[in-house]
């Protein structure tokens, strides 16, 4: 390890003898745990709308989020730590996103990128759009912008790293087991305009019943 990395990790107040600098660090469990988490935030590889283009740009060589340890976009929720909700969240997409969030292993973070994901943006009163993903998931960082530039996204991710630095292993919600936040988020079915797939058998039975009634009525009218 480089000497600078160890200096970040070392607790202030503990002097290390000069012959051991660069080889040793005195630290707490919290600090080393947070150091590990903040330096390997793997985002999930999915984009929802135009914000995804900026996210791709931030990942590519020009801005290069790999400098912060966020280079590995995982195509599987089981391997990712942070979910960048990049774009408009439609009512049709919400169940899928929440299922993906539930499948992510803890510790997990959500970044609402752009106006649509944080507050609905121009579609906030739309019939098919959710006015902000924070109505369903606990959002850690909101990045305003339409879309946020790659630098704004990286600034948001740095804020997330600063948030992780302040957390303690004793107080984070996922290791408690009793708090409400550690249970899985229920998957919603939204909107009167969507067919609830759970009701398909019921609807089929009702349709058959109505058809039978009409057939009974038809000869009487004739």
């Amino acid at each position: 390890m480089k000497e600078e990395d160890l200096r970040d990790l070392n607790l202030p107040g503990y002097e290390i003898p000069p012959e051991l600098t660069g080889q040793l660090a005195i630290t707490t469990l919290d600090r080393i745990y947070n150091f590990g988490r903040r330096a390997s935030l793997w985002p999930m590889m999915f984009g929802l709308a135009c914000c995804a283009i900026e996210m791709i740009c931030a990942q590519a060589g020009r801005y290069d989020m790999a400098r912060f340890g966020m280079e590995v976009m995982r195509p599987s929720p089981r391997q990712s730590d942070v979910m960048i909700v990049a774009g408009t969240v439609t009512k049709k997409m919400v169940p899928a996103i929440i299922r993906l969030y539930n499948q992510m292993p803890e510790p997990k973070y959500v970044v609402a990128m752009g106006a649509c994901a944080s507050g609905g943006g121009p579609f906030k009163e739309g019939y098919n759009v959710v006015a902000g993903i924070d109505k369903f998931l606990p959002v850690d960082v909101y990045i305003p912008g339409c879309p946020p530039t790659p630098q704004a996204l990286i600034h948001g991710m740095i804020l997330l790293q600063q948030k992780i630095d302040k957390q303690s292993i004793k107080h984070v919600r996922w290791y408690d087991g009793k708090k409400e936040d550690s249970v899985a988020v229920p998957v919603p079915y939204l909107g009167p305009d969507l067919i609830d797939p759970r009701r398909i058998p019921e609807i089929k039975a009702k349709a058959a019943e109505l058809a039978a009634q009409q057939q009974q009525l038809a000869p009487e009218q004739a």
Partner: protein
Amino acid sequence: MLTGKGILKGLGVTLKRFIDTYLDDLRWWGKRYYTPEGIAHRSSKDAKGVFTIQYPEEKLPVPEEFRYKPFLLYDEGPNGEKNIRCTSCGICAKACPPQCIWIVRGTDPQTGRPVPQPAGFWIDADICMSCGFCAEYCPFDAIKMDHNYEVASYTRNLMDMNELLKPVSYYASIRPLNYAREEEARKAKEAAKAAKGQ
């Protein structure tokens, strides 16, 4: 006859970029990163090879017409008072496509009649789509688009008057050409008014 010549040509372009990156690094030894000249060169058409913007330490300069979130302007008076340009007419709130602007009109505390000053002004930054219509439509040049993109937060970002108000000198520093043009138009208008009065 060689097949796959195009692929080799394409690979050659990539190889050229790769080598150019290091040649440019050598040419600009130690000055390519973290210096204003280096950043300007890398953004210009003369730049060769590929490079990364080392974001938190160095920032890519934004063009003058870059717009992010709106802000309110105030003129600095001689005694340090803030003369807010906004008259709370509400044209920006009507023009705003996602309707993220809320204005509360100010009233005179003694007479209770409305005064041309906003009592409250809120912009929901998490709904604003940075279209710049508010700045286009404002007849008093009171609301303009900011260049600051580092506005991420841990909670919903509802900007109030304290966050929105910025001095005219700040506007002149981020948009010098626009500021000069607007000041010229304003002076011409005032001169025409004075000539008419006489």
